[in-house]
C-alpha cells in the first residue's frame, strides 16, 4: 500500500540521498583534502549519483528500478571504498561519511524496490535477493566504519581482517573443525538424538513412564544442562570423548520430549482406521505414528543441531587438548588475537547454518505432505 503511494509521489528518500551525495562532493576528505578530480572514485560516485537522479526523475517499473538501484549501490560502494583506501579517513572526512549516508538511503530504496518487485515470487533466488543485498551492505558498512574510524582490531576487526585470518590460519581452523565438529559434535548429535528417539518410542509404550517422564523431560530441557560440562570433563578426560558426552546429554532431552509429543500427534480417526485394518502395534508405529511424528522429530533435530555445537564449544572452555574451536576461541581471546577468534566463530556459524540447512532439506524431502510445505 504505502510503497505504491511513495512511487506515485516524488521520492523523498532519493531526494535526501541525492542531496547528501552532492553536498558530500564539496566537503573535505581528511588527509585526501578534496575529491580527487582524476581518480576513479569520483567517477564511480558520480555514476551512483546518476542512478539516484535517474530513479528520482523517471517512474520505472519496480523490477528495473530495483536492478538500477542495486547496480548504482554497487558502483557507489566500490567508489567509496576506493576513496577510503586512498586516504579519506576519520572525523576529518565528513564528505565520505555524508556520501555513505546517501549511499545507505539508496540501498534502502533498492531493498524496498526488490521486495515490491519480487513480492509474489517464491523461488529460492528471489527470496534470497533482498537478504543478500542487506547482508552485503551490512558487511560494507562494518568495513567502512571499522577502517574509517580506526577502530582497534581488539574491539572489532574489519571483515577484511577476518577474511585474512580465515586464509592464513586455515590449517589450524581445519584441525579445530575436525576436533570439535567431526569428532565431538557429529557422534554426540547422532547418539543423543537416536537415544532420545528410541527412549521416546519405548516410553510411549508404557503410559506410566510417559506420565512420569514427560514433565521431568520438559523441566530438564529448560535447564542449563551445559553446566554438566565440568563433570563430563572430569569423567571422560580432556579429549573429544567428554565433549561428545556433553552433546549426547544436551541433545537427548529435546528429542525425547518431541518424540513423545509427535507420537501422540496422530488423530483419533487415523488411529481408528489403523485399528479397522487390524494393524499390529509395529505396523501402526511404522506406517502411521512415526510418519506423523516426523515434523516433531525434525523440530528436535533442528534445535539439537545448534545445541550440539554450543555444547561442544562450551565444554572445551573447561579443559581440552590444544585443539578445538572452543579452545581456539578462549586462547586467542587471551592473546588478544581477535581476528582469529572471529574467523573461528565464522567457521562455527557456517557449520551451524549448513547442518541446519541440511536438516531442513531432509525435512522438506521426507515430510512433503505436511501443510507447512504446501504451496499457497
Amino acid at each position, binding site marked *: 500500500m504505502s*510503497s505504491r503511494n511513495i512511487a506515485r509521489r516524488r521520492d523523498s528518500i532519493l531526494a535526501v540521498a541525492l542531496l547528501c551525495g552532492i553536498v558530500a562532493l564539496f566537503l573535505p576528505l581528511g588527509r585526501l583534502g578534496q575529491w580527487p578530480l582524476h581518480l576513479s572514485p569520483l567517477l564511480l560516485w558520480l555514476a551512483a549519483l546518476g542512478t539516484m537522479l535517474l530513479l528520482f526523475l523517471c517512474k520505472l517499473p519496480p523490477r528495473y528500478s530495483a536492478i538500477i538501484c542495486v547496480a548504482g549501490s554497487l558502483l557507489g560502494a566500490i567508489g567509496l571504498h576506493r576513496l577510503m583506501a586512498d586516504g579519506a579517513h576519520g572525523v576529518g572526512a565528513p564528505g565520505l561519511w555524508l556520501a555513505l549516508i546517501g549511499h545507505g538511503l539508496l540501498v534502502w530504496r533498492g*531493498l*524496498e524496490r*526488490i*521486495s515490491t518487485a519480487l513480492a509474489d515470487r517464491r523461488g529460492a533466488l528471489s527470496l*534470497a535477493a*533482498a*537478504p543478500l543485498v*542487506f*547482508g552485503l551492505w551490512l558487511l560494507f558498512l562494518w568495513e567502512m566504519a571499522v577502517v574509517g574510524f580506526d577502530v582497534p582490531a*581488539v*574491539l572489532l576487526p574489519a571483515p577484511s581482517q577476518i577474511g585474512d585470518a580465515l586464509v592464513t590460519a586455515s590449517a589450524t581452523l581445519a584441525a579445530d573443525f575436525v576436533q570439535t565438529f567431526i569428532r565431538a559434535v557429529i557422534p554426540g548429535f547422532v547418539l543423543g538424538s537416536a537415544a532420545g528417539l528410541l527412549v521416546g518410542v519405548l516410553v510411549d509404550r508404557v503410559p*506410566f*513412564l510417559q*506420565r*512420569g517422564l*514427560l*514433565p*521431568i523431560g*520438559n*523441566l530438564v*530441557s*529448560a*535447564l*542449563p544442562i*551445559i*553446566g*554438566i*560440562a*565440568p*563433570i563430563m*570433563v*572430569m*569423567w571422560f578426560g580432556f579429549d573429544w570423548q567428554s565433549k561428545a558426552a556433553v552433546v549426547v546429554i544436551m541433545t537427548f532431552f*529435546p528429542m525425547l*520430549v518431541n518424540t513423545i509429543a509427535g507420537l501422540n500427534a496422530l488423530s483419533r480417526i487415523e488411529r481408528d482406521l489403523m485399528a479397522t485394518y487390524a494393524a499390529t502395534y509395529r505396523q501402526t508405529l511404522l506406517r502411521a505414528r512415526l510418519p506423523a511424528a516426523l515434523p516433531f522429530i525434525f*523440530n*528436535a533435530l*533442528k*534445535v539439537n543441531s*545448534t545445541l550440539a*555445537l*554450543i555444547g561442544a*564449544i*562450551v565444554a572445551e*572452555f*573447561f*579443559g581440552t587438548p590444544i585443539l578445538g*574451536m*572452543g579452545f581456539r*576461541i578462549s586462547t586467542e*581471546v*587471551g592473546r*588478544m588475537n581477535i581476528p582469529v577468534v572471529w574467523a*573461528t*566463530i565464522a567457521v*562455527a556459524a557456517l557449520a*551451524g*547454518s549448513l547442518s*541446519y540447512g541440511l536438516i531442513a532439506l531432509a525435512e522438506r524431502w521426507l515430510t512433503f505432505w505436511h501443510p507447512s510445505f504446501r504451496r499457497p
Partner: protein
Amino acid sequence: MTLATALPWRPLVRFGGSTALSVCAILLLIIVIWYAGTVKMNAGPLLDRYERAGRTEWSFSELVADAMSMERPVLPAPHQVAADFNKSVFQTSITSRRSLVYHAWVTLEAALLGFVLGTLLGIGLAIVIVHVAALERAMMPWIIASQTIPILAIAPMIIVVLGSFGVVGLAPKAIISAYLCFFPVAIGMVKGLTSPEPIHLDLMRTYNATTRQTLRFLRLPASLPFLFTSLKVAISLSVVGAIVGELPTGAQAGLGARLLAGSYYGQTVQIWSALIMAAILAGGCVGVIGMIQRGIDRRFGGTP
C-alpha cells in the same frame, strides 16, 4: 521458538493425582539409579586406595559406605549433594562468599538485566519489522539464520574485550544474556504481531484505526501467547548466558565461577550443588513467567 513448543508446563502445574504419582515414582527410580551409580563409579578409585593402603580384605558394605562418604567422589551420592546444598544455602549467611544464594544472586542479577534488555530490543525490532515490509524481507532470514549460529561461543570474547576497556562485572554478562534473549523474542514477536487474521485487520481499517491503534488494540494483544512462549525460552537462555559469561575470566562470584572453581579443584560435590542451584534458578524463572502469563490470560478473559 522451536524449543518453546517443546515446553508445555501444564503437566507440572496441573498436578493431577496419577501424574504426580508417576513423577514421584520416576524421581525415586532416578535416585536409586544415582546411588547405584555412586557405588559403581567410586569403586575404582576406592579399590586403588585400598590397595595402596595394603588392605586386602574388604566387605561390600564397607565399600558402599566408603563410596557414599568420599571427600572428592567421582559421582557424589545424592545425600552428600543435599548436605552440601543445605550447608551452603541455609546454614551460611547470604552475604558470605561461601553462600550459594549469594552466587545465585550474582548470576540472576546479570541474567535478569540481560533478559529485560534483550526482550525490549527484540520486541522493538519486531514492531519495526512488522511495519516495514522491506525490512521483513531483508532481515528475517538473517535473524532466523542467526539462531543456527552458536552465539554462546562469542561470550568469552565479549567478556575479555569489554574487560580490556574497563567494563567488568555485571554489564558484560548482561550483554551476553541480552544477545541470547534477543533472537527468540524477535522471531516470536514477528510471528505474533502478524498473527491477526486479515479479517481482523480489515475490521480495524473499517474503524479507521491508525497504525498505532491497530498495534495497541489488535496486534499486541494477539501476540501475547507468542510473546510468553518466547519469554520462557529467553529466560532460560539468559541464565545459561550469564553462567557461561562467568567462565572465561575466572569471575570471582556467580554460579559459573562456582562450577569453574569446582572443576579446577576437583570439588565434585560443589559442582553438583551449583548445578542444582542453577536448575532451581532457571526452573523458577520459567515458572514465574508462566504465572505472569496465566495472570494476564485471566485479565484478558481467557479460560485457564
